[in-house]
């Protein structure tokens, strides 16, 4: 039953022939298909990964743009607020200044009017007093010395009445 003979050699040849036939006609194409499929899948996965990365980068870009836009909007609103505030402050200051100017002008004007009125009153007082005194003493007191004397008197009266 255990009888080693030339069948051994024949069998080795058989196997080599089988291997050669299969390797030439079947395995090469089959392994090529398996390789192709593997490469195809790897390529697909790579491409999917690529797409995912692109999408992520786009997303980040959009998020950045959104944040930028929001920041910009905030800045614009801030700026507008500041401008408005400044405008308001300026107007208020200007109004204040105008008010003060007007008050000052008015005060000056009033003072001037008052001075003028006093001057007028003094002149008329002097004239009247002179005329009255002239009538009283019945003589003309038109000399410069008389006038000065009367003015002095009138000033003294006015100052006392002030």
């Amino acid at each position, binding site marked *: 039953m255990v009888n080693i003979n030339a069948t051994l050699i*024949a*069998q*080795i040849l*058989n196997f*080599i022939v*089988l291997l050669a036939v299969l390797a030439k006609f079947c395995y090469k194409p089959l392994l090529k298909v398996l390789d192709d499929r593997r490469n195809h899948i790897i390529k697909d996965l790579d491409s999917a990964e690529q797409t995912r990365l692109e999408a992520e980068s786009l997303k980040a870009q959009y998020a950045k743009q959104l944040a930028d836009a929001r920041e910009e909007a905030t800045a614009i609103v801030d700026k507008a607020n500041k401008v408005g505030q400044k405008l308001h402050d300026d107007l208020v200051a200007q109004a204040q200044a105008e008010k003060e100017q007007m008050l000052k002008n008015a005060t000056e004007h009033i003072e001037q009017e008052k001075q003028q009125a006093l001057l007028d009153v003094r002149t008329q007082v002097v004239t009247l007093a002179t005329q009255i005194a002239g009538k009283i003493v019945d003589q003309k007191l038109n000399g410069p010395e008389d006038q000065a004397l009367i003015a002095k008197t009138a000033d003294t009266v006015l100052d006392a009445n002030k």
Partner: protein
Amino acid sequence: MGAADQASNEIIHYLPTVFQGVTINMQTMYMSWATMIIVILIVAAATSKRDLVPSGVQNIVEMFIEWLGGLMESNMGVEGRRLLTPFIITLFLYIFVGNEMGMLPNFGIHFTSPTNDINVALGLSIPVALLVYVIGIAKQGPAYFKHFIKPFAVFLPLNILEDLVRPVTMAARLFGNILAGEILLIVLNKLTPWIIPDLWIGFSLIIGFLQAFIFTMLTIVALSPVFKALHN
């Protein structure tokens, strides 16, 4: 008593025939050729219509190639897989189909497993043992022989023994399992014509697959140090 007379007394008939002084077991040869044809037909059917998206037989064979490929890759690395896929798959398919041949019903043709002949089993295991050396020397040059004195020089006899014994044990395991299965089937058929032999056939089909897997796995394991040493 000649070889032919001697064989006629046995349960299994190898039909030894003498060609110009060289004895060849013709039954074994016929069955070996039949196995080769079946293997070629299976692989051809699986690969004739090669689609990127597989279906049918191609799917099964590809699944099976991927399975063996995974075993090869985990033991021999990617390089070993690329180099030896055709050899390992052919080896497995040949032994598997050969083992199952003996379980076919004998209508007209007397089916036996080619692997029930120690010549066939040795004819598969000796090339494997030689292949280990061929690849080892091709990959590492004369340095390959250093593996005999690893891990220490003391292991030299053990290592030589291992390399010599391996093909013998592989062949004996395959041949013994298949031959015993066929002899038992014949005996059971003579004892009880129904059911029991059928159960044994079912079991033998599993053994046929198992022995093919064991032989293939041992081949991969025998080849793996060559590639592992290369990686280290």
